[in-house]
């Protein structure tokens, strides 16, 4: 293809179609110049315009008693106990594949600025990561060493950036699947907090107001990041895209957080927007369009990293750690003084106008002049979507030889997906800010909510294997799992944010996966009354012809009543009774048992009854509120077997378990039937638990007791406590070698 590039019209090499180019000419009434064309190309990219996804996102439930600000702003905002909590997930998949350390680092920077742009102080980060299989794990192939390199780099990038800016990384999840070998996923969720009357919006009101640019200088890094990188699939030349990846400067990000929040607190700004994808062009046009104003920018005033930058470079550069603020003329000096005091660069680069146009000048000449709103008002596509023929769904259905149940359990416990991720989260500062009540390794992280007596719980969950079998059901399952995780720590789930990771939307079968997943997510959130406050769509997660498994990531926040203490996962005392809440069916479809023991992926998926999830959630919260539970763990990936093994691995005792009579042991242990949890109660509290469960018609099964130094499950060989701990604690770090 390289040979034909010279003959290609400019708009096409910038990623615009002929029809889109035609429409730009209609808008302007003339041929766009290079700078203008570059502006439209980034703003109308899939990443910025949501042109393929927009029509499908409209029907999502976004209203609820807690929601203050729904989709469309920098972050969703909910009200909890009188303060506002901002939440947002962003993907940085492609940059992280090309350059894992900086790609992941700048992913953190971007989502943190989204939250700061709402006026909120970031108080927590969570990461949801996907890579190809690691060396030594089931399914490891020729990409395994590279996958390990990517994993190590991404974790290091998150660690170096997140730790430096002083925002704790309190949780997340990381999974491995061959599907992500050519396209890993790096999704980052940020939570922030702001007084309700302090919420800021991306608006540039008041003609005559000054436009200030805060933070880093503008360079040639990251030009076309949203179009070149984020809105196209990879080919063999992925490494050549490295110059489109930005380089992170967490120190400046820290100054930018403090500076932005200080200006807001001192009442010096009337509008604020972060610079992320599409850089200055996006921040200025969006904030003007949102306020129905225009803006004139003097590009000569923009502090540059190098000389002789072209207007299109200045306008579309994605140099990191920058923020745009709108300031009344009388307050400009005070705003610049405050930034200077904090060591943060602040430069007046333009003025708000009433023209509704974004006009940019350089050397006294107009170099771009476009209707501000037209940049954000990109094309909307109703892309064709078709369900693939069932036989074309790429799953693996040739099982390898199985293992005896005890060996299967140990292997699962030490697998990359299910082993302890301590190796990862020990590299994250999960404590700074002193709000972390329960950090990584819990079913859901628990945070004190600053300024209140309330605690919130946060989780992020996704299941690409389920999505590959059935994207609609897979999305519903992901919502249900997030919900279950929050309930297992005693929280009431209240709101969702999400990141939809899919392949190339121009392929009808991929578009179908997306449409199905959006509907599944919407359905589950509607039923569980967890409105969707916003989201991010990441398409083109595909290398050559291989799309990733459809992977919606669900970030969910729940609220704990004051005084409620979440029980730990690990077993605390001998003779505590272990109880399974919920009913177990024979449902191994899509399970971790299939992945790690059989090497297959084949449906059908477990049946998902959302009403049963809601009942289980109520029961868990009631039990925890009454302080009846000594331990609790949601039962999902790896089934009862994995839940029990983790409770043993994280606790002080083994257990003696009697399976349900008449059940096939492998299926009973490893089925991923939904709406279940394993809990431990003192013997004397068992009757109260049974009464509560009976009252709502929820089935319970007495599994056995915590006891001794081994896990004894009738019908299989005993496993020593030390072997369980070794597999769980060392499995992952050994693969990372």
């Amino acid at each position, binding site marked *: 293809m390289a040979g034909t590039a010279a003959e290609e019209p400019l708009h096409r090499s910038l990623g615009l179609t002929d029809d889109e180019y035609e429409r730009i000419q209609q808008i302007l009434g003339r041929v766009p110049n290079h700078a203008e064309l570059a502006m439209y190309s980034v703003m109308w990219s899939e990443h910025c315009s949501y042109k393929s996804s927009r029509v499908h996102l409209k029907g999502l439930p976004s209203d609820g008693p807690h929601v203050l600000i729904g989709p469309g702003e920098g972050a969703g905002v909910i009200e909890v106990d009188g303060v506002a909590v901002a939440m947002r997930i962003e993907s940085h998949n492609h940059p992280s594949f090309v350059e894992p350390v900086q790609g992941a680092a700048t992913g953190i920077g971007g989502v943190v600025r989204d939250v700061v742009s709402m006026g909120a102080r970031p108080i927590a980060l969570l990461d949801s990561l996907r890579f190809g299989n690691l060396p030594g794990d089931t399914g490891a192939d020729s990409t395994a060493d590279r996958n390990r390199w990517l994993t190590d780099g991404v974790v290091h990038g998150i660690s170096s950036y997140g730790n430096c800016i002083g925002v704790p990384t309190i949780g997340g999840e990381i999974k491995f699947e061959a599907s992500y070998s050519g396209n890993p996923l790096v999704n980052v969720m940020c939570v922030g907090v702001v007084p309700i009357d302090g919420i800021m919006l991306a608006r540039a009101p008041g003609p005559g107001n000054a436009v200030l640019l805060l933070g880093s200088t503008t360079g040639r890094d990251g030009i076309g990041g949203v179009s070149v990188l984020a809105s196209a699939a990879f080919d063999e030349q992925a490494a050549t895209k490295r110059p489109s990846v930005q380089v992170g400067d967490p*120190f400046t990000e*820290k100054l930018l957080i403090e500076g932005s929040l200080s200006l807001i607190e001192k009442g010096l700004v009337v509008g604020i927007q972060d610079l992320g994808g599409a850089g200055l062009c996006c921040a200025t046009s969006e904030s003007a369009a949102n306020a129905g104003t225009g803006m004139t920018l003097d590009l000569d005033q923009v502090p540059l990293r190098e000389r002789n930058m072209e207007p299109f470079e200045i306008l579309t550069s994605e140099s990191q750690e920058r923020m745009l603020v709108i300031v009344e003329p009388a307050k400009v000096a005070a705003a610049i003084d405050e930034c200077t005091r904090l060591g943060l660069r602040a430069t007046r680069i333009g003025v708000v106008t009433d023209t509704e146009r974004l006009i940019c000048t350089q050397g006294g000449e107009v170099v771009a002049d476009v209707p501000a709103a037209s940049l954000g008002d990109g094309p909307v596509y109703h892309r064709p979507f078709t369900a693939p023929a069932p036989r074309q769904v790429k799953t693996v259905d040739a099982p390898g030889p199985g293992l005896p149940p005890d060996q299967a359990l140990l292997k699962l416990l030490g697998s990359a997906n299910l082993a302890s991720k301590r190796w990862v989260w020990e590299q994250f500062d999960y*404590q*700074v800010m*002193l709000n972390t009540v329960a950090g990584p390794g819990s079913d859901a992280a628990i945070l*004190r909510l600053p300024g209140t007596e309330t605690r919130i719980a946060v989780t992020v969950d996704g299941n690409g294997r389920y999505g590959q079998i059935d994207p609609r059901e897979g999305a519903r399952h992901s919502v249900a799992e997030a919900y279950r995780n929050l309930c297992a720590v005693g929280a009431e789930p209240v709101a969702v944010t999400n990141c939809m990771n899919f392949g190339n939307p121009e392929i009808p079968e991929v578009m179908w996966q997306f449409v199905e997943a959006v509907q599944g997510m919407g359905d589950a959130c509607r039923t569980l009354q967890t409105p969707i406050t916003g989201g991010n769509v990441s398409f083109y997660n595909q290398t050559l012809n291989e799309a990733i498994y459809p992977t919606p990531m669900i970030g969910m926040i729940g609220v704990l009543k004051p005084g409620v203490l979440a029980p730990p996962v690990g077993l605390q005392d001998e003779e505590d009774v272990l109880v399974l809440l919920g009913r177990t069916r024979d449902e191994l479809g899509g399970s971790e048992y299939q992945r790690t023991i059989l090497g297959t992926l084949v449906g059908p998926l477990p049946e998902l009854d959302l009403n049963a999830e809601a009942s289980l959630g109520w029961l868990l919260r009631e039990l925890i509120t009454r302080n009846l539970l000594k331990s609790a763990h949601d039962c999902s990936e790896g089934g009862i077997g994995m839940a029990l093994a983790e409770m043993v691995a994280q606790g002080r005792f083994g257990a003696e378990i009697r399976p349900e009579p008449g059940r096939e042991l492998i299926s009973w242990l490893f089925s991923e039937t939904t709406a279940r949890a394993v809990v431990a109660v003192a013997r004397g509290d068992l009757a109260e638990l049974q009464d509560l469960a009976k009252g709502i018609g929820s089935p319970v099964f007495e599994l056995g007791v915590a006891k001794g130094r081994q896990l004894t499950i009738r019908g299989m060989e005993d496993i020593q406590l030390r072997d369980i701990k070794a597999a769980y604690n060392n499995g992952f770090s050994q693969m990372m070698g």
Partner: protein
Amino acid sequence: MKPTVGVVVFPGSNCDRDANYSFDYLGAGTRFIWHLETDLEGIDIIVLPGGFAYGDYLRTGAMAAYSPVMNSVKEFAASGKPVIGICNGFQVLCEAGLLPGALRRNSGLKFRCMPVKIRVETLDSPFTMGGMWPGQVLNVPIAHFDGSYYADDETLEELIASRRIAFRYCDAGGELTDEANPNGSRQHIAGVLNEQRNVLGMMPHPERAVDPAVGGTDGRLILASILYSLQPAES
């Protein structure tokens, strides 16, 4: 009169609010001191908090050691008042020459955030005099990339001879095992004192172990000891 704790804030400090919270929790007065300030009038205790001053793009603490406030901190220390540097603050104190030695990259070459155990090595300092006993094992967390304490043999001998090692990493039984040393520090050193014994640098975060809701209470002993040391001696 309750003592006033001055929490120095460098650009890039990020445990300043946590230090402030924990001293406030223990009933002290607190004040933030921006690194450009030089007037420490009315301050009884100086805290150099954790974080990444100036991004630590150079050696950790190297830039911060030249901040205007540091001259005042040196005078403050010379007057005998207590100064505690935690994590990045310890690194700054070493770079500023207020403490011997240096903090190098962790032996595992990874950032580590985890609970550790440290052993109280001396009671002869404002930081360890109140309510502690020699050999006592405290639970406090670490969170650092560059925490491996290094000093040459001569300096180490002097530190040992003058009993200026304040804390050592140890296991639950107080033993100095290799497994219990999270970063490869020489002599298992987690914290050291200056010659006058009024300046302490330590890598673990006592301010993270004050409020039981988020991380235990053993760090209280250290912070409360400083407050206690300032009370007028009983006659």
